[in-house]
């Protein structure tokens, strides 16, 4: 809440309680929505990885060197895999919020900015899984391994530059279908491997 905004409660202003000694609360109370220092996307990156830590998809919406990407991936995978099943889907990591969810043997992990809504990010992840499911027909990890390029194409019809571009499941799947039909050589069934 803006530090400069006059308080709305009618009680006399109390001395600051919560932020002594607790960096999070102080930082959070002191300045929400500061001007964004860098041209970051709402979603910074999305990673898919298996229970063994093997990367299955990596979509980066911010420019980072290969080395940095590897480092982030390694650390984050470790952190997420260390989480116990009963823990919540959100964690704070570096200066980002991480939203992750496990579907069967795959972890879907997104990094969002401080002012982004974690709950809607869970919906984004879920929508993506639904799209994959519809496309592959009861998707499993193997589908994503053997058709990784398709997983990217589908994601690119749902999110663009880290933002949601299409909220209709139907429209996304239609677009993929049409693109598949354009591929040469033409095949009768669009999900037969071309490569």
């Amino acid at each position: 809440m803006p530090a400069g905004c006059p308080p709305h409660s009618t009680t006399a202003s109390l001395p600051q309680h919560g932020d002594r000694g607790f960096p999070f609360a102080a930082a959070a109370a002191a300045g929400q929505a500061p001007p964004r220092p860098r041209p970051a996307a709402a979603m910074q990156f999305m990673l898919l990885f298996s229970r063994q830590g093997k990367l299955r998809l990596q979509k980066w919406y911010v420019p980072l060197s290969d080395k940095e990407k590897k480092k982030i991936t390694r650390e984050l995978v470790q952190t997420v895999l260390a989480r116990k099943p009963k823990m919540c889907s959100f964690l704070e990591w570096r200066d980002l919020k991480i939203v992750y969810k496990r579907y069967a043997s795959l972890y879907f992990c997104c990094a969002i900015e401080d002012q982004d809504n974690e709950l809607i990010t869970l919906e984004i992840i879920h929508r993506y899984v639904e799209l994959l499911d519809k496309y592959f027909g009861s998707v499993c990890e193997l589908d994503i391994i053997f058709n990784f390029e398709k997983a990217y194409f589908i994601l690119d019809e749902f999110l663009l530059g880290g933002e949601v571009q299409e909220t209709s499941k139907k429209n996304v799947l239609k677009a993929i279908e049409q693109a598949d039909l354009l591929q040469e050589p033409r095949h009768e069934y669009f999900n037969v491997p071309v490569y």
Partner: protein
Amino acid sequence: MVVPSLKLQDLIEEIRGAKTQAQEREVIQKECAHIRASFRDGDPVHRHRQLAKLLYVHMLGYPAHFGQMECLKLIASSRFTDKRVGYLGAMLLLDERHDAHLLITNSIKNDLSQGIQPVQGLALCTLSTMGSAEMCRDLAPEVEKLLLQPSPYVRKKAILTAVHMIRKVPELSSVFLPPCAQLLHERHHGILLGTITLITELCERSPAALRHFRKVVPQLVHILRTLVTMGYSTEHSISGVSDPFLQVQILRLLRILGRNHEESSETMNDLLAQVATNTDTSRNAGNAVLFETVLTIMDIRSAAGLRVLAVNILGRFLLNSDRNIRYVALTSLLRLVQSDHSAVQRHRPTVVECLRETDASLSRRALELSLALVNSSNVRAMMQELQAFLESCPPDLRADCASGILLAAERFAPTKRWHIDTILHVLTTAGTHVRDDAVANLTQLIGGAQELHAYSVRRLYNALAEDISQQPLVQVAAWCIGEYGDLLLAGNCEEIEPLQVDEEEVLALLEKVLQSHMSLPATRGYALTALMKLSTRLCGDNNRIRQVVSIYGSCLDVELQQRAVEYDTLFRKYDHMRAAILEKMPLVERDGPQADEEAKESKEAAQLSEAAPVPTEPQASQLLDLLDLLDGASGDVQHPPHLDPSPGGALVHLLDLPCVPPPPAPIPDLKVFEREGVQLNLSFIRPPENPALLLITITATNFSEGDVTHFICQAAVPKLFRILNPNKAPLRLKLRLTYDHFHQSVQEIFEVNNLPVESWQ
């Protein structure tokens, strides 16, 4: 010999078939060699397949930089299959750090103007993922054109590409601002969503844009209202909530537009109330919208009633069975606890319940929130909960919990006894996790509560007898036993059960602490000094104490050795002074936490250590060390006995006067005492680095023929002047001298009132 290249899926099979890491590496290296050869040969037919394979191994962590140029070639091809993989490769392998990335600008430009929608889609997607600032500048006109295209498929992508471009090149805002008004009239959800994202980005970057877009608030309200009341539409709904993605985005924009703006906030007030009350909260989608609504309500100039509604929604979230919802509720309440304290207080019981969460990130937030909610009326109940939490909480939260409890206790303790009990409990439960100044604070507190001396020492003795491993507790206990050992032995204390303790037990306990390998050097110091003090408090003979003291005279620890030697000397040579030296300590005053609070309030991220009140440094020994005995014959140059190591154990503090503007003029010396040739002079210096400080040097000179022995000089100032002299009252000093001169004991006590004006102004 032409080896037919492996299909992508066959390669993947082969890699997965590898039993070891080394085998996998072998397979991949072999294949990469083929791929490199194929690239060198320039085979256009299989290029897309080769790149696809390369992208796969790249994901496994292997180098793929030699495929970068191939991406360019594939993008430039006319085949859609080639373009699809080429653009994917560009997004994965090329980024703005590589010079090569600029080479795709031309291809993108061509593809954007080609008019084939899927191709345009690919180009826009790539541009918005990895487009650098230069690329964005170059291609802005193309993207602008596409904003007005008839096809919604391309338009929605063009809009989000514009968002990316503005992020990279803020000046492009002027290009993409004008079309927004028209785009906002679209019905297509994708376009609408993109437009709102674009407007949000423009407003966040420019106050002028923000002002400009305030006028669309009514339109946004209308769109959202339609969305909410429209009813179920299978295409865009999730669990009965109409297009939650779009709702959340609109709410976010409303938040930015309504912030600090009465009129806009007013316009959206009713709508927010409507969304807050009507959204279906049975599933996550609804809760996501509700959460965003709450964030918006709290951030704009909303009516008081609406704010309370929002806090109550968060309170309801706290009771939700979904852990994620509880998490966002706790995080948001933490942000609100300052501005809407009373509203959040209403949910205190629920918050306290959350301390029992199994998930550490939730219990941590619950802890922070609980500590923020402690006030004078609920302190007893809250402390009980928090202390229970301290006993069972995960180790990484212990330190924060302990500190939090101690701070809260300091601020809101209803009685001193309660305060002492609380600190004692914390020290016994989480002694190793408390901050360093907890010991000082507790000794200070106990020292000041005279009526509780007997109680404190009794309790501490019991605690120590049980467990000598928790260092802060041991230190405080040792100090107390030393100071109030007589009360301990007296045996009567109404507050707790009478306990008969005999001297030998007490001494044995302190010796145990001294000898224990768990005791830190500082702790040993406390114990040794406590033993020493007991020599005057106890009735029995001091042989046991003397023995211990002399043993430690050869201790390896230098500090301990020095003290032991001094104490030993005290026994042997200065026994008559022992009682005076080991007297009960007067209360040391120090700045309370309040003063520090105001100073730290404005700072972000107050560090735990910064919040600690700074105890006044007793620089007493410095004053006495300045005794410059120009004593000819006397060989007995007396070192002032080491005053008790506990902080604040001295009678004298350096006069710390408020900052006086420079330059400090030299202050004249002052003769304060003269008797039979013994003279005492005061000289004053202000150190240049710290003009607020005044150093007084006492020089004693013996002009007579007789020796002066056993010289002690003590100086004291009235309480007023202890730390600050805010009123700039004339400085007064009391001096006490005892010495032997001409075979007579001389004792003089006098006040010095005529200190030079410059010393206290």
